[in-house]
């Protein structure tokens, strides 16, 4: 079987599966459309959450980023998993007990205010749109690299598929396709990792493999540190960023994860409070399988790459080298005209530029794995991008149809009307996301990472204080959210797009990067919320009762 044919076959089969599931699980009520009828099994919800959560970036880019950053890449590993501990312990069970459909619904009811609800809707829309544009682009990129169609057609195919199952099935359709997508993506991620681990260390478990010895009897990480030193890169296991920035970035990613509306809403779909806790546990377990494998792939790929290319003759390079050169992801510039590839940490002698995405995408070819593994990888990357896009789409559509239209603009809308509104908003959201996927604004790549900062700076304090601090009132929450998100937007536009006078890393406040600034904005949000809250009048009695109620378990276990 040719490579092209295998890829079309496997991608086609997985797409047929997603469509089949969508038809089987169409939503017929708003309850089914928004929260899958609240009947999802915790393990299934754990898988769906994992797929929802792991985006094209986790699947394609993360191992590559770690591969280039070494220890500094730990911020993503700890940040994107540690947030689930916060979710499970501080948010998920209480929000499930509260029992509504969306995050803005909680904020609006807890803070007895449609202003708070509207602010929350806009925060949710800002966070979700910055994120979804990146996903649609990811779909296009995978299509263009593996299936030799252009990026735009790839985006259109992706839009069509998501549109079909998100609009037909709503949350119910999305949930069960995400379960299937999790299985596809984790299988696709693990198979090459296991093969390569066996090849390099004789250990089938990648998590142990990268702490083992290679065929030459040297520990793999020691060897890699040695290679790095030789070539003028900083030590792989130590990194080079400031400790303070690592600390703040990890915290921003963790708290942002716990504040992302498309993740939180998954915990509304289970039957009872104890199931919300359980699904958080399962979700993290399923996520951890990929997240503990990624750093192993990073080490294997990095070592493999350096050994294959460094100080070797350009004409002796294997075929994948030429192939990825054609895509522009790999560039060799023979500065001293000796035909030998000098790969070096010093930019003046370095002759090779490598796009970080190659580390995962070309890994099976570098390790000479069979065609079906490469095809699987394409299907896995698409599953990761589509599942996240669908989850975000639902947040956008329910924020508009439920929180804006039903609760504020037209409260007398019928259930049927609301369902139509939900599907229409999903439709327009896909078109908008597709537009950004085809005409990506320059800031898409930068803002995806910053969506976490925005979520941390806006939602997290409002939700946590809403549960753990009874005295918290609407004045405090509204001003906290507005100041938090504006401060984050200011810092991010100043240092990422050069607005407000711009500046470079030497101008960062306290030396904290825009990625880590979400933590600072969140702390400011907490301080503002609590101060303003104590200066204004107490929340009404029924709100205190509501908070006391969500803190306690139900009388029976359902």
């Amino acid at each position, binding site marked *: 079987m040719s490579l092209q044919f295998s890829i079309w076959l496997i991608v086609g089969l997985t797409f047929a599966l997603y469509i089949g599931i969508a038809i089987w699980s169409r939503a017929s009520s708003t309850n089914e459309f928004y929260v899958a009828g609240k009947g999802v099994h915790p393990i299934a919800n754990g898988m769906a959450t994992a797929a929802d959560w792991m985006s094209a970036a986790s699947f394609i880019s993360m191992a590559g980023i*770690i591969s280039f950053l070494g*220890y500094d*890449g*730990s911020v993503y*590993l*700890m940040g994107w*998993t*540690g947030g*689930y*501990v916060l979710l*499970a*312990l*501080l948010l998920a*069970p209480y929000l499930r007990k509260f029992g509504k459909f969306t995050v803005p619904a909680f904020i609006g009811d807890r803070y007895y205010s449609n202003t708070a609800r509207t602010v929350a809707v806009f925060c949710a829309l800002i966070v979700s749109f910055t994120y979804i544009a990146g996903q649609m682009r990811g779909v296009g990129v995978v299509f263009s690299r593996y299936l030799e169609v252009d990026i735009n057609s790839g985006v259109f195919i992706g839009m069509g598929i998501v549109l079909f199952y998100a609009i037909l099935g709503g949350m119910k359709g999305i949930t069960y396709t995400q379960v299937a997508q999790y299985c596809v993506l984790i299988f696709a991620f693990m198979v090459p990792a296991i093969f390569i681990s066996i090849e390099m260390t004789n250990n089938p478990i990648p*998590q*142990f493999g*990268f*702490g*083992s*010895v290679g065929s030459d009897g040297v*520990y*793999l*990480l*020691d060897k890699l540190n040695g290679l790095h030193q030789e070539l003028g890169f900083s030590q792989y*296991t*130590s990194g080079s960023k400031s*400790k303070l920035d*690592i*600390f703040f970035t*990890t*915290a921003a990613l*963790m708290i942002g994860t716990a504040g992302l509306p498309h993740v939180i809403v998954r915990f509304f779909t289970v039957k009872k409070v*104890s199931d919300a*806790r*359980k699904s*958080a*546990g399962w979700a*993290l*377990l399923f996520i*951890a399988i990929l*997240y*503990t494998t990624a*750093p192993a792939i990073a080490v294997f790929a990095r070592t493999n790459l350096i050994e294959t290319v460094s100080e070797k003759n350009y004409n002796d390079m294997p075929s994948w080298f030429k192939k990825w050169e054609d895509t522009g992801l790999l560039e060799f510039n023979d500065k001293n005209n000796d035909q030998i590839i000098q790969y070096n940490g010093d930019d003046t002698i370095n002759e090779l530029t490598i796009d970080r995405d190659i580390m995962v995408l070309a890994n099976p070819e570098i390790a000479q794995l069979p065609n079906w593994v490469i095809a699987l990888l394409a299907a896995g990357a698409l599953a990761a991008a589509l599942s996240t896009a669908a989850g975000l789409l639902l947040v956008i559509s329910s924020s508009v149809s439920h929180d804006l239209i039903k609760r504020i603009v037209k409260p007398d809308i019928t259930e049927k009307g609301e369902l139509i509104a939900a599907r229409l908003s999903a439709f327009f959201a896909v078109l908008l996301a597709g537009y950004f996927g085809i005409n990506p604004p320059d800031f898409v790549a930068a803002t995806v990472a910053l969506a976490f900062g925005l979520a941390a700076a806006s939602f997290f304090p409002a939700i946590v204080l809403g549960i753990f601090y009874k005295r918290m009132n609407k004045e405090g929450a509204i001003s906290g959210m507005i100041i938090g998100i504006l401060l984050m937007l200011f810092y991010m536009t100043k240092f990422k797009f050069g607005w407000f006078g711009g500046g470079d890393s030497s101008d960062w406040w306290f030396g904290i990067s825009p990625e880590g600034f979400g933590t600072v904005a969140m702390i400011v949000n907490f301080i503002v919320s609590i101060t303003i809250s104590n200066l204004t009048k107490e929340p009404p009695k029924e709100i205190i*009762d509501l908070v*006391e*109620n969500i*803190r*306690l*378990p139900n*009388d*029976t*276990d359902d």
Partner: protein
Amino acid sequence: MKSKKSKDYWRKNLKYLIILLTIWFTVSFGFGVILVDQLNTFQFFGFKLGFWFAQQGSIYVFVVLIFVYIYLMNRLDKNFRSSK
């Protein structure tokens, strides 16, 4: 609503949260960031210990923490209901 039982339940819950979140902070921000250089002087199989906590160990502990929390809260909920 404001019975002693409800208060006890909430206080216990907060106690669990404080203990579990302290462990959460220690393995990630403590071992993986603040103390990473000190821990890196120890070797753990082929890993430097601090590096292992940052890229592997902390994640394993996170998973365990949530399942411990599930167990503790299920037990607490059950006691709360049966004493009603």
